[in-house]
């Protein structure tokens, strides 16, 4: 680009107060712009910010969407078969495994979920989250003791999921469970139960 294209700026007549600053090109240019181009410069500044804002918004939408995706996606729940009636004796407690509700193709083993399933009577089942209500560690069913115990901070629950000892502020979360027509025991998958502040 040749410099000849631009009109040569008129040489300002140095005012007495500017004379000693004449050697400083910045002060010179600023003073000049102030005299001539105030509305024009103002417009250019606004244009710059405006255009920048448009670009930021355009790029920002998909970027922020990627960040917030987990909040924008639905929170699906699905009935999953965890066994048939004959698998569970009355009064017994089992660890059942199933696929979580919205597993991704690349999840591998991490799409698995688990729950504690207890057959109370011929018709009645009860299912507990494996997550301790304290900080989410996996609780174990101790058959002999008839208690759920957590390895992290010593939370202990009775067989009905109520707190027996330790720090959990509430009992184990229960899952919906049903027996479908063909003797299939089905469990409604659910999010990891988050214990909130008020519990």
């Amino acid at each position, binding site marked *: 680009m040749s410099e000849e294209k631009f009109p040569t700026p008129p040489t300002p007549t140095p005012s007495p107060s500017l004379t000693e600053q004449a050697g400083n090109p910045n002060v010179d240019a600023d003073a000049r712009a102030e005299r001539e181009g105030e509305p024009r410069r103002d417009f250019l500044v606004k244009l710059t910010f405006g255009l920048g804002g448009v670009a930021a918004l355009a790029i920002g939408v998909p970027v922020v969407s990627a960040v917030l995706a987990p909040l924008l996606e639905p929170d699906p729940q699905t009935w999953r078969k965890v066994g048939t009636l004959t698998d569970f004796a009355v009064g017994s407690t089992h660890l059942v495994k199933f696929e979580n509700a919205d597993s991704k193709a690349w999840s591998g083993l991490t799409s698995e979920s688990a729950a504690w399933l207890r057959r109370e009577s011929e018709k009645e089942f009860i299912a507990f989250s494996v997550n301790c209500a304290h900080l989410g560690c996996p609780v174990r069913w101790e058959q002999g003791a008839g208690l759920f*115990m957590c390895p992290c901070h010593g939370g202990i629950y009775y067989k009905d999921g109520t707190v027996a000892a330790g720090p959990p502020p509430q009992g184990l979360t229960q899952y919906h469970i049903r027996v479908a027509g063909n003797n299939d025991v089905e469990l409604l998958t659910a999010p990891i139960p988050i214990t*909130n502040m008020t519990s």
Partner: protein
Amino acid sequence: MSFLQKAGAWLDDRLGISDTLMPLAKHLVPPGAKWSYVFGSATLFCLILQVVTGVALTLLYQPTSAAAYKSLEFITHQAVFGRLLRGVHYFGASGMIVLVGIHMLRVYITASYKFPREMSWISGVFLLFLTLAMGFTGQLLRWDSNGVWSAVVAAEQAGRVPIIGTYVARLLLGGDTIGGQSLSRFYSYHTLLFPALLFGLVGFHLYLVFRNGVSEPAKAGQLVDPKTYRKWYQDMLNKVGVPFWPYAAWRDVAFSVAVIMGIFTLALVFGPPELTQPPSPATIYTNPAPDWYMLPIFALYALMPPAIESYLIIIAPLLTVLALLALPFISNAGERSPLRRPWAVFGAGTVVTLVFALLVLGEQAPWSPKFDAKPLTTKLINSHNPQIVAGAGLFYNKGCIYCHLVDGHGGHRGPELTEVGRRLKTDELRIRIVNGGGNMPAYGGVISEKELADVIAFLETRK
């Protein structure tokens, strides 16, 4: 001039090595800034070590939740020097935490955060939390069952924040459960987002060292006065300052090399932590425990009263951050010498002691049922009475031994029962077992009359 000399001169002119960089390397530092000043630069060297080994690990690591575990097995057991590489990155992380902690303590004890270095302290506070965040996300990338459960625990902690908690937890896991989306997020945080923030802040932190100068060794009675300090500092430097390179830099280099060789040796001898089971959230027979530097927090969660826990989980970190950020504004002038600031030294000592105590407790986890306790041996039972033998069996079977110690066997949650027969009568034993209390479950509903009598008979022999 030879060609090489010419090329050198050309580069020097275009890059400004002599004009811009050499003055930085040669900038004057106060004399006497000796071995106590090496921790910041050692942290920087350690960070560089982490970046280099981290980049190397990404060449071998598969950041998908299906493949990460297998690629880690590959790195640990098959890749050429892979075990060493993982080991260095692991011990390097520990090195970062230790050095950041010591550096911060040194700055606090010698009050180097006072005028005009307030922003150095504040950027340092952010760097401390970023370092912890890097350690934590790094542990999760070990995508074994421990890593998976750590992610759940992290989400649960976030979930305690009022109102936005559940959303934060969902953002952390990338969904409502652990799954294919979870690891992608942690990988991005650990290798892209946090490092970018770290580099920016480290650059800022270093820039401030050049702008405000290294703090002079604290002398009792030499007060910092914001009005006169800068001039005094400049005069002092001009009079007695020494060029950083090489008169102070050699200590930094020597210490950093020692640190890095120490990390290398640890990695060579001990190797990285062994992977636990594969990362299935359905694998529940696992014992999620954080890396050692998170154990104090882990211990705190076990020990604080449950009633205030939800509040403390949010308020305590918030207050800590606010207090750390406010520090240089609360006291930014006056005495710097630790000899004249006994309360500061006492406070720092208290915090260090507390963290160490919690670390030791976290390592022992005396609040957790000892699931791997073995049944009591015949020798320990020391009786052929069938009822007592049956009672001893129940003591194991009912999980009593997980929490109660008998002759050195068992857990530490409840009181030791080695000599319980001397302390408690039959009725007292019975009441405690049936009703529970404190941190003891009420066994009334899960034990039959006969079993109860057997256990009591066994306990009564413990004298």
